[in-house]
């Protein structure tokens, strides 16, 4: 178990020793800041973080795979994966360690974003509940997207492949309602159940609503539902397992 911590610790250091963490944080705060400002700058607009949440959910489709693309692809490319896999370390310890490093990095960004909340409290009287559930939902959503990104990174020694596959999977799970709207019955329900976050109503700049469909909707409204929490935890667990399997199959090639 301590190997998980050693690996996570090394990777977090690598993130903050390179421009990566700072560039991505800056982009994250700029993009979500735009959504936040647009959602609260009208007279009589609601003092909520829904605009920020919409921006974050949208931006993480690209940001999460960008953060994770290096983690396993580079180890394969420079040959250090051979070293890791011949050390007395289990595959799941490697995968969980890498995942935690990316997760900690994103958590740091979310902490920085709390200044939006401070602004709300200074200039308005926000409802605390939706802010708490919104952030909880965002943490869970981040975990799920990072797990998918990490899986994509395990597939190829090429980081760009990891980025494209990761963003592709996330986009697919996000716009899955395009498909589910056009089919009926159980298929439609299954597809709806798989929908990752907000759909494209993120771009509906009038409402700044997070989509009605998708597992993020209730978090943004201030509703905490066990089903949504289980969904994000399951996606995270399933993709971490798939990543372990991807690493194990590398041994056979």
């Amino acid at each position, binding site marked *: 178990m301590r*190997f998980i911590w050693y690996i996570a610790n090394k990777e977090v250091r690598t993130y903050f020793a390179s421009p990566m963490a700072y560039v991505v944080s800056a982009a994250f705060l700029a993009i979500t800041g735009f959504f936040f400002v647009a959602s609260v700058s009208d007279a009589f607009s609601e003092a909520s973080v829904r605009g920020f949440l919409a921006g974050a959910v949208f931006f993480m489709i690209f940001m999460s795979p960008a953060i994770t693309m290096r983690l396993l692809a580079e180890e394969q490319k420079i040959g*250090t*994966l*051979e070293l890791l*896999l*011949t*050390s*007395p370390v289990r595959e799941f310890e490697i995968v969980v360690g890498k995942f935690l490093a990316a997760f900690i990095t994103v958590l740091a960004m979310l902490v920085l974003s709390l200044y939006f909340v401070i602004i709300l409290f200074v200039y308005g009287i926000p409802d605390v509940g939706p802010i708490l559930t919104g952030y909880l939902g965002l943490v869970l959503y981040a975990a799920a997207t990072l797990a998918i990104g990490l899986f994509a990174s395990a597939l190829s020694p090429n980081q760009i492949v990891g980025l494209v596959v990761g963003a592709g999977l996330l986009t697919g799970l996000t716009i899955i309602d395009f498909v589910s709207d056009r089919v009926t019955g159980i298929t439609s329900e299954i597809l709806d159940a798989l929908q990752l976050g907000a759909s494209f109503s993120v771009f509906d700049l009038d409402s700044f609503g997070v989509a009605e469909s998708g597992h993020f909707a209730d978090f943004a409204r201030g509703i905490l539902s066990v089903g949504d929490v289980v969904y994000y935890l399951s996606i995270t667990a399933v993709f971490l397992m798939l990543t372990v399997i991807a690493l194990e199959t590398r*041994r056979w090639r």
Partner: protein
Amino acid sequence: MIKLEHMSKYYGPYPAVLDVSFEVLKGEIVGFLGPNGAGKTTTMRVLTGYTPPTRGDAVVAGYNIVSHSLDARRHIGYLPETVPLYLDMTVTDYLNYMGSLRGMNRSWVNERVPKVIDTVRLNDYRDALVGKLSKGFRQRTGIAQAILHEPDVLILDEPTIGIDPIQVVETRELISELGEDHTLLLSSHILPEVSMICRRVLVIHDGRIVADDRPDHLSERLQHSERIELTIRGAEPRAVIGEMRDLPMVVDARRDNRAESVARAERDGTMPLIVDARPNARATEVIANKVIEQGWGLVNLTPLPLTLEEIFLELTTEEDLG
């Protein structure tokens, strides 16, 4: 310490290693010799637990590499062919990290890291970024991580590939020193290297072991001809070569074009030749008589041992024919 029993490894339908069995005892230094693509790296990857064998068993330090993989891996130090380094870490940070991944505790890591840095002579570069080091120094960093956790078995895959000649010499010296207190399996396609460092050589070709012997025994066993170095003063080269070729046991005679011989010949005004003769025909005596009979100056007449390189060529050619 290392035991392979009827190990085969297939990549898809293609065998990379076929029915290989050998054993390496504690303290042995064994060279693993073969051309590129012969199956050296695959065999080493099986032994280090990187990839499981398709058939057969591998046991390292008493642990089966498949069923007790973690236990076996704890006892192995491994340097893969592409030296696995994190270029954005310093030498010390890298070794600290590798130590912790080997399950070493903090105090053991703190004690070992300065020692191995000293062993591989990187004292002046302990805080340098690995990415800034020359290839030879990177190789040493790679060797340092392999010996860090005091493994029983050391497996080095092509440790001198791609580094400059002076550093090759230093790396070989380093490996010879390591052989004094490790069981060592070293792969190479450079033959003099193996004969220099190892007391036992395994030759692998097309995924099969084709020879397993001491380097000097290998040369005796495979000696098909005797090679003689002959240096003459005061004679016409073409005449000497002609006379030599006329001798019954001589297979071939030609000018010695090795750089050192040519340089010495120019300095001394002599003529160096290489004569190949059939074995056990007293060739040196006959050649000496001939030189004296012709009234030439005999400067040097020495039988040369065949190099492992040539033995190896023979081995692989024979395999090809079979």
